[in-house]
């Protein structure tokens, strides 16, 4: 679709284990810059696990283990040279369930910024406003920035989490189960901002249904039980899947 076909992320022979449970199986996948890639499959396919590995949040989980490589701009993220907090700023993540911190709206959006040295107050305020506008939340919260974030509706909380990630100006934005349980208005607002965002960011989502995958994705990677079944342009996957398992899933025969 897009002219820019540079690969931002390369996943090579990647395996992930929770204890002895082999959850991601020898997965190879390239993710292109400035596109929206959906990682998609039936429940428990391993999407969340894969997405958590991309900014090494999986490090926090005890007794997990991985083999293979995840390269971002050619750099292996598990290389000991890599500074993990820098990596997490570069690869922002929105979680499956909205997870605003129990702080004010303002403190949530500026949370990551306050750990960066040498940020001026005005710069922080500008970034916050930009992030909230881009996440389509500014108009709803601009008069109550110091109210508790947990007082927002579920859809607003999810957009707040997007804003909080944007404020760090990451290069990659990962949104897990982007709109599950959200009202249609919030969903379409998030989807609109995703489409705007891909000009400047690489976006990876795990959509919550096929309709959403088809609305926003440029490319779709279909995974099943931790294995990549196929990856292609969204239209190809949805209309002309090559693998029987993909078409079974899309036509609703399982999952």
């Amino acid at each position, binding site marked *: 679709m897009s002219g820019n076909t540079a690969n931002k992320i390369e996943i090579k022979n990647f395996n992930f284990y929770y204890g002895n449970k082999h959850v991601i199986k020898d997965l190879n996948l390239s993710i292109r810059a400035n596109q929206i890639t959906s990682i998609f499959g039936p429940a428990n396919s391993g999407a969340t696990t894969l997405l958590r590995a991309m*900014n090494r*949040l999986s490090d*926090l989980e*005890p007794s997990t283990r991985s083999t293979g490589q995840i390269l971002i701009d050619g750099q292996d993220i598990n290389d000991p040279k890599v500074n993990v*907090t*820098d990596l*997490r*700023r570069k690869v*922002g*993540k929105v*979680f499956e*369930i909205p*997870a*605003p*911190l*129990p*702080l*004010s709206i303002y*403190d949530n959006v500026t*949370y*990551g910024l*306050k*750990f*960066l040295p040498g940020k001026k107050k005005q710069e922080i305020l500008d970034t916050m406003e930009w992030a909230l506008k881009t996440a389509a939340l500014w108009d709803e919260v601009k008069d109550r920035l*110091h109210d*508790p974030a*947990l*007082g927002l509706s579920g859809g607003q909380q999810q957009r707040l*989490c997007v804003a*909080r*990630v944007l404020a*760090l100006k990451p290069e990659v934005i990962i949104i897990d189960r982007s709109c599950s349980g959200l009202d249609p208005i919030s969903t379409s607002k998030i989807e609109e901002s995703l489409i705007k965002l891909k000009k400047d960011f690489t976006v990876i989502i795990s959509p919550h249904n096929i309709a959403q995958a088809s609305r926003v994705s440029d490319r779709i990677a279909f995974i099943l039980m931790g294995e990549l079944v196929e990856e292609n342009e969204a239209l190809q996957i949805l209309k002309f899947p090559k693998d029987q398992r993909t078409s079974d899933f899309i036509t609703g025969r399982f999952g």
Partner: protein
Amino acid sequence: MIKLTARTSERIAKVFILSIAVLIMGILIWIIGDILLNGIPHINFSFLSQMPRNMGREGGIFPTIVGTLMLTVLAILIAVPFGVGAAYYLAEYTKGGIVTRIIRFGAESLAGIPSIVYGIFGVLLFVEILGLGFSIISGALTVSIMILPTIIRTSEEALLAVPKIYRDASFSLGATKWQTIRCAVTPTAIRGIVNGVILGVGRCVAETAAVMLTMGGNVLAVPSSISSSGRTMAVHFYILAQEGVMQNAYTTAAILIILIFIINIGTNAVIDQFISKRTKGAR
């Protein structure tokens, strides 16, 4: 055998639980009510501000108020850094290893020891070996050890109850472990931690045996420093009651109860005002 339907057995259980609740509340209200009814009419400014005369049979309780405040403030200042620090260590930095289990077991054992034993320990260690004498500081050190387990346990529980998703969110926004603890975990857990401290304050204010042994409760002068002897209200109450000076004992007890109420309500108001305003709705 009679077979009860689900509804009947539910009803019986309900009545049973309700009557236990009513019984307990009744006893509590009776005790507190008795003390307050007998005590409050006799509370006045001169009782609060005057020196006791005739071994507390006449006059006021001013020195024991000072003694109580000094003991409590000191004990809290000593116990909170250690207790809260230990809780952070247990909850955030150990992964359930042998050290954790030893500390946890130690803290739990400490919680079960009768206070008189702490008193004797305090006399040996602080009064004699460390040469601090029968003094407010000896009492405060002793009581601080007593309240340590409570503070550790409540703080640790508060920290462990912080949802994992908050930590994940903080880390994924580029915070380090320490920044995560400071900015995401602590604001969420602070109410529980403060509750542990309040329980500790209550224990300091109310403790008798350990304090009487280590603080040298015979002295009825206003303590001039932390190495003076002194008497707390609780000790004073105990001695008066023992000697049958019931009216002043009741009045002292009523003041104690009111003080504990004020501390509880006051601290919660302070938390609401300053800490929880923005964290409202957490958990």
